[in-house]
């Protein structure tokens, strides 16, 4: 299944997310400049680029934290620009953070139950009066937490405080929390940062399962080139806020503009040879 998906041409399939000519200007700084990008449904794609390239700003615009200065963002045809972050989540985009942002005084289970927030229908009064709806929504949240903990393999940490989990597991818990919102698209901001090779391998398998088992489209920002090149079906490269390249992993790897962005002009001209390219 993975193979067939990775072989299909992204441009010809239906897109879950369409970003058109998005620009973000902070004061005099153009953080993201006229970026257009389509994410095919049920794909795994990556956004890469050197530090400060505008990747996280790009994520923040998709998730509604920033409003683009120009451009449109559509999720399955629905306009996202102008929605609040929580409305974006409700529409079906979830995310994780570059620096882990779990709810530190909550257990793993409760963290995921917060992720379930938008899908629960019980109101303030339901909670006060303990109506049937309240009990249903609570057990739904617990069930979702159980399923997600199982999915990422953290069942043993169910009642452990989130901050007490090992680093790699915290990353996984953050992914589980994002998945609990039942998104159509999940954005992972440097999920492998700080992980050892073994944990990275686990993560790779997990990301594949998110797409294959849950049918959720995955878009990641990542600096670990080995992970990006083996996992992504399609890669977009940003530098100084602009899209400088996109394509299949081997196309991007051999694109001189990408090498230039990562290594400088000299390297791109072949001064250091092919070995110095940003792949692994």
């Amino acid at each position, binding site marked *: 299944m993975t193979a067939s998906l990775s072989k299909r041409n992204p441009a010809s399939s239906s897109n879950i997310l369409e970003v058109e000519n998005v620009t973000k200007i902070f004061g005099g700084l153009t953080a993201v400049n006229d970026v257009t990008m389509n994410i095919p449904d049920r794909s795994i794609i990556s956004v890469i680029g050197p530090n400060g390239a505008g990747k996280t700003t790009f994520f923040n615009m998709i998730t509604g934290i920033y409003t683009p200065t120009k451009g449109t963002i559509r999720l399955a045809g629905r306009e996202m620009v102008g929605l609040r972050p929580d409305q974006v989540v409700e529409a079906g985009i979830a995310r994780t953070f570059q620096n882990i942002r779990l709810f530190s*005084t909550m257990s793993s289970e409760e963290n995921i139950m917060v992720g379930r*927030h938008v899908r629960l229908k019980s109101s303030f009064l339901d909670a006060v009066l303990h109506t049937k709806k309240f009990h249903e929504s609570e057990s739904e949240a617990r069930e979702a937490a159980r399923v997600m903990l199982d999915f990422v393999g953290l069942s043993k940490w169910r009642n452990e405080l989130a901050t007490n989990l090992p680093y790699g597991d915290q990353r996984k818990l953050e992914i589980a929390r994002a998945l609990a919102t039942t998104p159509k698209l999940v954005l992972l901001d440097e999920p492998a940062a700080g992980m050892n090779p073994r944990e990275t391998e686990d993560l790779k398998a997990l990301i594949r399962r998110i797409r294959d088992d849950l049918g959720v489209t995955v878009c990641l920002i990542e600096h670990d080139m080995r992970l990006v090149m083996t996992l992504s079906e399609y890669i977009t490269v940003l530098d100084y806020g602009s899209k400088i390249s996109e394509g299949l992993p081997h196309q991007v790897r051999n694109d001189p503009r990408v090498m230039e962005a990562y290594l400088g002009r000299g390297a791109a001209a072949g001064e250091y040879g092919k070995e110095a390219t940003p792949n692994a």
Partner: protein
Amino acid sequence: MTAINPTQPNRAKPAPDRTILLILFFVVTSALLLSSHNQAVLNGSLGGLLRNPIFEALVVSLFLANVLFAYLWRAAPWARALVGIGSLLLVLPMAGREDTSLLDLSIQIMIFSALALGLNIVVGLAGLLDLGYVAFFAVGAYTWGIFASPRLSSILKYYGENPGATNAATLAIGLFLLVVTAASMIYMRRMSDKTAPTRLSSWAFGLASFGLLAGIILTVRAIAVLGASNAAGLATGIDSNFFWLFLALSIMAAAIVGVLIGLPVLKLKGDYLAIITLGLGEVIRVLANNLDLYTAGSQGITPIKSAAVPWFNSLAGFLGFSEDQYYLLFLYVLVLVVVGVILLVNVRLDRSRIGRAWIAIRDDEVAAQAMGVPLVQTKLIAFATGASFAGVMGMIFAAKQTFISPESFNLFQSIGVLSMVILGGMGSFPGVILGATVVTLLNLRILPGLGEATANIPWIPQQVNPGQLQRLVFGVILVTIMLLRPEGLLPNKRRVLELHHDENQEDDSAEGNAGALGTGTGDVYSPGKAPTKENDRSGGAK
């Protein structure tokens, strides 16, 4: 998620069963309390000791500790229920029959407990530092105070003499505006869930809220003018049977003010929010001071009615209370019920979707929003919920004092309630009740008792007499407690888990039921943590 029986030993080292000790403590302290308020005993040989103000304060404190121990100690459920209910519903009213100041003190403690519980939602759960909390208390107090006192007839008289251009048509216009703008606001609110807001829709909403305000003002004015002829009939305010309706109205009024204050400020956080709520809290007090027509300014409103409950009065009479004690006993039972309900609401909200959202916002606002928690709405609910608890207690406070003035609602009250929350343990329901109890006891009994007892001792110079230095002693006690227990007297379960995460922990979803909560024996707190707590505790409670 099965409920865990708190008395079941599911730990390697179970807490010793203290049923006998609890009953013994209850009997001894009850006997002490009753005898120290018994005229015959007071006249006896022990009278001198029992009349000593320090001893008196100690007896009351020890007696109130019963409820705490019934909650904390591992004992047979019947014993805990007996001690809890017995202390609050039997012994305390009995002692209060001889000495109404005891009932007064208990009502005060419970009013502050409710305030602390309300502020705890805002500060402890949602993490929004609110220094103007007492404003909502004032709103509740004035809601009842204006209507249930001679103030109402003065207002009507004023409008009768100055009707302006107001007539029946004004009422029609006002009501029309009210309905149209309210309906359009609800419609716009519905639409905004589906589509992104535009500049036009924001302006339309602003215009509609302006129209709503105008509608309210016109309607109220028209009603006041048209009803002016009734002024004579309302010389002492509206009928006291309206008390129950106003209980609901004061909740609503405070919640609405909470939303109105919250809307503009909740985009801020931390220190900024604290300063701006401080300012807005003062605005409410200054308004109460300057709206002479409605609030009688700094003179205050008096006398304010209480509820009239004939069957309760006959019951109180049957129990041997004198007529002037009826209303105090009634208010005592009322605040007991209200605090019970507030506690129940708190516990239920804490373990719900909205409670998790509050804690998520406290822990990490950005992450909470990225998980789909609508920040402004969730914070507003916290503000409004906390405000409504203050509102209902404000109304009861007005009925109890029969007098309110803006001075009852100054900044120090807000800070006092905040100190109760922090002292007891932010985010912990039993903790903030304990905090409110300790602070109120210190302020109303222990420190005045200390001052009174030492006032006439010749070798203590006047300058360092504790009676003169009550505030200083209070401050020193606060600082000491906070240094020794920074997490509060009865810290939140979550904080305990954070501090002692290596200890074996378990699923704590035990639900306290409504009856048990009302008497303070509900098991909100992790039962297994109790043993370590009480050793530290006994020092702090007294």
